[in-house]
């Protein structure tokens, strides 16, 4: 356990060396949010609510969805399939820890770095420019923090699975691209799921992607109330359990087939 915490800390420290690169990223994200903001202003055109969100909630949704992406997003899929492919994984096998847990811990360290140096200042910057409404209820902040952490777990486990599958099917780019498109489309990052036509809403609701962005961002806007909040967390927890079992199963099979390359 101490080992995994230390891996997290080290990754955070390693990222500090690159923090300057991130300042320009904040500006880019604010510009993103701005362009979506103006599009949505036109779409709402004076209407009170669309897809279950008011225009003000929509602005908040956009800002928080993009900024929390900085926390849950990572490249574990590519890292894992590359490390297996080029044999770097050999070095990980001589360490007394579980490779996947170590990777997850590192990714969390990176996520926390981006939360501190990117998402938090970014959200503050966005709030200066656009009418973002922060929750006034302290409980909502706590639920949102929990939901964001769970979102990280869902997305990272997804990446682990995609990385392993990509390696074993020898189809790196295809699998990783498909995963990327699915996450972008169904996580609610670009379009809250409530805006999909009724017939298209059902599918995403049965898929794990909503647990990555849609649910935590909804929590933040205050659009979910009482038991709905707990249901959102439960949906996320459910998917984490399912994905964790799948990842562990794949990894066990991988161990038997793994051929460490090179050297």
């Amino acid at each position: 356990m101490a080992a995994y915490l230390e891996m997290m800390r080290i990754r955070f420290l390693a990222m500090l060396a690159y923090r300057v690169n991130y300042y320009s990223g904040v500006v880019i994200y604010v510009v993103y949010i701005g362009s979506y903001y103006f599009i949505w202003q036109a779409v709402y055109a004076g209407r009170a609510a669309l897809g279950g969100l008011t225009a003000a909630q929509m602005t908040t949704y956009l800002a928080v969805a993009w900024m929390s992406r900085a926390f849950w997003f990572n490249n574990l899929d590519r890292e894992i399939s590359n490390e297996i492919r080029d044999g770097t994984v050999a070095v990980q096998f001589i360490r007394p820890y579980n490779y996947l847990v170590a990777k997850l811990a590192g990714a969390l360290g990176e996520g926390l770095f981006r939360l501190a140096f990117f998402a938090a200042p970014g959200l503050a910057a966005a709030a200066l420019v656009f009418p973002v409404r922060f929750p006034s209820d302290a409980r909502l902040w706590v639920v949102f923090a929990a939901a964001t952490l769970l979102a990280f777990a869902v997305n990272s486990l997804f990446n682990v699975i995609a990385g392993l599958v990509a390696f074993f099917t020898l189809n790196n780019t295809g699998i990783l691209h498909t995963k990327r498109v699915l996450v972008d489309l169904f996580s609610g990052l670009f379009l809250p799921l409530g805006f999909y036509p009724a017939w298209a809403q059902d599918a995403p609701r049965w898929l794990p992607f909503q647990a990555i962005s849609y649910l935590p961002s909804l929590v933040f806007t205050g659009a979910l109330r009482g038991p709905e909040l707990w249901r959102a967390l439960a949906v996320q927890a459910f998917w984490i359990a399912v994905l964790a079992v799948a990842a562990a199963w794949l990894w066990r099979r991988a161990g038997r087939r793994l051929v460490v390359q090179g050297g």
Partner: protein
Amino acid sequence: MAIIEARQLTKEFRKFKSRPGLAGAFRDLFTRRYETVRAVDAIDLTVEPGEVVGYIGPNGAGKSTTIKMLTGILVPTAGHLLVNGCVPHRERERFVRTIGVVFGQRSQLWWDIAVRESFRLLQRIYGVPDAEYRRRLDELAGVLELGDLLDVPVRKLSLGQRMRCELAAALLHGPSLLFLDEPTIGLDVVVKLRIRDFLREINARHGTTILLTTHDLADIEALCPRVVILDRGRILYDGALDAIRRDGQGLEEVVRAIYQGEAVGGGAGAGPGGRRVPELGGGRAAEGGSAVEPEGGRQYGAGGAG
């Protein structure tokens, strides 16, 4: 009890064989043809605690593959294997605490952080108590002269500097068994000498067992009373280094002749230690457990000073 005990240890790789041309590629889609390569072919190997064994052979002989099995990275295709009392790949997490590994071709330090931070991370990973960690780090940093390197990020180190750090990293948790796969590759003479001195010293001081592969026979002469020669996955010779020496010939020539298929021990002066012998000849038994002869040490030490 032996620290490494391998019986009929075998590793086969299945290689995908592609057919030539477009039509071939199309047929490959439906029926894949595989070719089996026996990288390690039923070898028997026993190493006693405290030994320093040179594991040599031409490119592609199967040295790295053997080391990967011995360290639990690869699962053997067949055979029995017991290292430090464990079946490496089966009890991996417990087993790897007892060994140290250095791959000359691959870094195991964290690229972006200072060497010292990498070491501290290893301390936590292996759960080394603070006092013990400080004592070991002092010792390793002293002998390997790491002083100024500790605060430099790994990506800024030269190959030789990095390799010294890699060695320290492999030993921070005090393993009783050290595997080195081409630890001196690409290093200049001075660094090579320092690393040889260092390995001799930890072997003498802590009785650390060492199995090392190299293409530099001077490494072998300086360090290994016993050599195992491998070619195409089979052991050609296992015994005392002295037993294959011949009057008037350098080790280089002798080993080249063996790689080229000449029978081992055919030359004048070859003792009874030779041939491929699972039972192991007198050469090894006589040498067993002892460190390297001091003459070798002085010879190379003097070279380093000059």
